[in-house]
């Protein structure tokens, strides 16, 4: 076990992270998403983006509280996975779902709040992906951590993105919330930054 977890496992982990993509692309060309492939693939890619965001939020608490400390080195990997699947989700929406129909996309982007939430999440994940290199970490110094805490906002955006588009089936929105909401809540209690922030707002609220 110890021998395996000496960074030589990384290629296997990358392969594992690419499995959903392989599955999606093969399903698409095998006709599993027929007759409305755009809609089906949009759902599946969105679910996988959420899974990776959930995973990245899970890594730190797991690494802190158990002997699996080595997994914290995968935060960047998992985060990049979330970025990749969120971009896939966006591209599927633009091309396979809306057919690059300009007026369709514009009216969605301009008028529909749940799209803002999704777009914001993709923008955050893209920023974090761009600033994920060691070079950027060094260059940004203390700010790096502050910026990368935006992942919590991206996670909240996913929850909003799902609840705002519920028709009558709440299954998906429920499941994603069940994972994301507690992972956000434990961070409110953990970080002194948020504690101070909450104390301030609470005092303001009580007055």
């Amino acid at each position, binding site marked *: 076990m110890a021998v395996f977890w000496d960074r030589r496992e990384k290629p296997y982990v990358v392969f594992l992270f690419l499995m959903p993509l392989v599955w999606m692309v093969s399903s*698409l*060309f095998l*006709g599993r998403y*027929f*007759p*409305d*492939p*755009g*809609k089906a693939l949009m759902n599946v890619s969105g679910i996988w983006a959420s899974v990776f965001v959930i995973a990245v939020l899970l890594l730190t608490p797991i690494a802190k509280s158990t002997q699996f400390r080595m997994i914290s080195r995968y935060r960047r990997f998992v985060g990049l996975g979330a970025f990749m699947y969120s971009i896939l989700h966006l591209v599927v929406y633009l*091309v*396979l*779902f*809306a*057919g690059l*129909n300009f*007026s*369709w996309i514009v*009216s*969605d982007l301009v*008028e*529909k709040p*749940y799209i803002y939430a999704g777009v914001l999440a993709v923008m955050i994940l893209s920023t974090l992906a761009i600033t994920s290199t060691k070079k950027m970490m060094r260059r940004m110094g203390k700010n790096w951590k502050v910026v990368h805490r935006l992942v919590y906002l991206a996670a909240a955006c996913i929850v909003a993105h799902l609840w*705002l*588009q519920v*028709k*009558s*089936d709440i*299954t998906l929105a429920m499941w994603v919330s069940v994972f994301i909401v507690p992972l956000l809540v434990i961070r409110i209690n953990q970080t002194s930054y948020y504690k101070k922030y909450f104390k301030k707002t609470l005092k303001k609220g009580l007055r």
Partner: protein
Amino acid sequence: MLIRNKKASDCSESQITDESVYLNRRQFMKVTGGVVLGVGNIGHVAAALQEGNPLSPSPSLKSSFQNIVEAAYGRSEKVSPYDVATSYNNFYEFGYGKSDPKEKSSQLQTRPWTITVEGEAGKTGVFDLDDIIKESLLEERIYRLRCVEAWSMVIPWVGVSLATVLKRFDPTSKAKYVYFETLYDPKQMPGQRGNGLDWPYREGLRIDEAMNPLAMLAVGMYGSILPNQNGAPVRLILPWKYGFKSIKSIVKIRFVETMPETTWSLLAPSEYGFYANVNPNVDHPRWSQKQERRLPGGVLFPNVVETKMFNGYEEDVASLYAGMDLKRFY
């Protein structure tokens, strides 16, 4: 019997199936499908019968289905393939997923089937569906179906004008609206065991909408009876309205004086109105209704079509809503 009049609601040349493909399939189906099904006169439908196992009508109904009259509606449309129309459905009585209706509807017993007629009408009571079919001359009409979720198909329905059937029950002058109800039986309809919707599914029409010649009571599609997942054994087809208005597996018709409550407008009144007319100018709160994805789409690119006012049936139905603010009465 077939009268061809090019109407505004008909499709453009570009949407017509290539003639050689069309004729080949047609010929092929005349020889094979027609024989297997025991139905004739299904020429237009044949073009779309590619995969799947079309059903056969029961022996007592066979003659009705052998004498289907081809109505002029949609003769130039490119019909969606049978397997698409029967495997991609919204029928929450069998689950939320698009493939649930096909997978979970086999337990539905559609024969014998009775319809209870109540309310403001001279002839009320319980009527056998097969009798209603036998008294009618079945018509095939090719209609565009536009779902509120912004996808659409073109489907050849078999049935009769709704007005013809409703008039047989002698509605009185008090019958200002017609109310319809789907079967409620959680044993046969697993989706009803959950409480996603307030069962049974309810729909309604203003009487003049119901009497419009475009409104259809369908008992079949693609030249034969309706598969369970498509609303067997009897459903409405209202091509100028979003698909959810076309209530499936109807067991009750009630003539009423006041506007009836309908399932979707009860669940989300700001999203689904009583009228639910297809209207590219009134968006759903969460998505645009200006375009639609005509199914089936390509592997990498959908077939995006501009949505037309009243789904392109403006000529036939616009007069019903003259003077109404369609942004308010959506």
